């Protein structure tokens, strides 16, 4: 009988070996895995396609959950760059911050980040029919948020900002041509890319936001209603083909 749960001490284990162990465990029917002492091993969860629970203590390396389709990963620490790269399904919940290009080309599933994120988060995130990737950022983001975003939902709550603080990201949604961003707080016009516009939230937006903020509040233990009390800015692309006429006369 395969073990239903597994503990792995990842100290000094090279990333390939670690990911081989994970794959074998999942193939053998293991349902919950706890990883201890993770220090930068890359690609954890890559291409796993079962609803396994993976609990990570430490700092997982780049491209956490890339190509992942189904597992739920909980990180007790910070994630590095490229978390959720081309992820297809499942969940990543990060009790900390995440680096650059989080949700890079993401195609499905959800990522919740308690604190801040780096540059180019959700770059080229996309959606197709029933697949609608979602990223919820508890803190704030650095520049080029949602660059070339082609689909999905991106929420920024700004909870790490000081009471009188504001988002400092610029070039938000540069090249965006699909999907929606909801950003709690005000943005100046110069912070937005040329390809996005601000519109008012409708009832469907409010309902979607309430669901996602509630989910965030459950993951990280905070008051959803206090978050939803503040106004959000909704950003959508002005065109589905912003560069369609760039090289054609």
């Amino acid at each position, binding site marked *: 009988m395969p073990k239903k749960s597994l503990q792995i001490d990842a100290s000094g284990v090279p990333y390939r070996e670690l990911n081989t162990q994970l794959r074998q465990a999942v193939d053998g029917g293991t349902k919950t895995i706890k990883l201890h002492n993770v220090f*930068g091993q890359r690609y954890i969860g890559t291409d796993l396609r079962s609803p396994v629970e993976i609990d990570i203590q430490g700092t997982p390396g780049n491209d956490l959950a890339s190509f992942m389709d189904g597992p739920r990963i909980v990180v007790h620490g910070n994630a590095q760059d490229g978390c959720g790269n081309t992820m297809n399904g499942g969940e990543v919940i990060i009790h900390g911050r995440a*680096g650059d290009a989080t949700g890079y080309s993401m195609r499905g599933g959800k990522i919740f980040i308690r604190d801040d994120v780096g540059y180019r988060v959700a770059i080229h995130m996309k959606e197709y029919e029933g697949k609608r990737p979602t990223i919820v950022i508890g803190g704030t983001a650095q*520049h080029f948020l949602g660059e070339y975003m082609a689909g999905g939902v991106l929420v920024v709550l700004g909870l790490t900002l000081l009471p009188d603080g504001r988002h400092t990201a610029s070039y938000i949604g540069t090249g965006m041509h699909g999907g929606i961003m909801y950003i709690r707080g005000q943005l100046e016009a110069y912070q937005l890319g040329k390809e996005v516009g601000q519109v008012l939230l409708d009832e469907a937006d409010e309902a979607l936001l309430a669901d996602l903020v509630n989910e965030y509040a459950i993951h990280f233990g905070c008051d959803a209603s206090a978050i939803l009390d503040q106004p959000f800015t909704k950003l959508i692309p002005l065109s589905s083909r912003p560069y369609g006429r760039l090289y054609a006369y």
Partner: protein
Amino acid sequence: MNPTSYENRYGDDKVYDACGLFGIMDVTGERFSGQDIVTGIVNMEERGNGLGAGFAVYGCYPDHADCYAFHVMYTDPGSKPEVESFLKTHFYLVHQEEVPHQAASELPDPPLIWRYFLHVDPAAMAQASEDDEGEYIVQKVMQINTAEMGAYIYGSGKNTGVFKGVGHPSQIAEYFGIEEYQGYLWTAHSRFPTNTPGWWGGAHPFALLDWTVVHNGEVSSYGANRRYLEMQGYHCTMRTDTEVMAYAADLLMRRHNLPVKVAAKVMAPPLWGEISRMAPEDQTLYRTLRQVYGGLLINGPFTIIVARQNEMIGLTDRIRLRPLTAAVGNDGNRLYLSSEEAPIRLVCPELQRVWTPVGGQPIAARLGEPLPVENPLALESSLASPAFACAARGA
């Protein structure tokens, strides 16, 4: 095998990645062994591909702290007598020795490497055109490196060690016995060469006087930067783009005496759109910097750790196309700069704070001064302060 360049010996398995950087500085000046810097850079081994690694350390030569420590790589050992006679003519030699290394090594054809501890000979300098020791050293280093005799001075700072070669960081650390050295500031590099050869001189750090630079990225403006620096007497001989950044640091911050934050804005200037939203006096300053130092704008993606005596600086390009994580240890004395967060936590599990610097904004630690805080938002407006204006006029 040609001792100066190597094909990728690691096969298709390692055809793409990125360089790795790591730096640690203790601002109290307390010296510590190379153990942490080696652990940190080795943790990111997959960022490199074994075609270069190196270490810089400050405070490692206390017995000769006042001497310039010339590190000389002889790709042609036959040039050694000529180099030594040159050094004796222009300097007062205090001590010389082969740089200690493993007797047997799997590294490919290591060159002969010696170090020379020397003072500038005042009589020799009186006959030269340079009236300043720094200039004198720069000119002599350039003279040897451009002579094409198979000898390269790749380190020339006081109390500053530079150790580098072709191999993985763990191999280079073992080869030179890095963990045996002590210093208060360390930087390290793991190389993934993009478009220049992997050879011993092309490994990082690049150094001139006490400047050292380790770099992840690609200097797209290399040609423009190199031409600008050649007009100022700096000659590129190491066949790696990073070399221009070491010379740019020397020109801007030593010769022209610019503060770190201004030099950073020369190498990674704000975009024109950002400049247009600044206060009028800041606009004037930034436009002037771009006009005067346009040839030192470093285009392309980069993260660098620049160090000199008493100071370590982390900087990325203005739109941060390469990673940099900064952290302060729990004791509040050590700044860590790294391509990734995990190796920082590996060597220092308890951190006071950890953050991702904004592109183009330098993170600098200085001996005896408090460590930088997260998000130095006051930086932009303070640039045009009277203190800066004085420094700029002094240039």
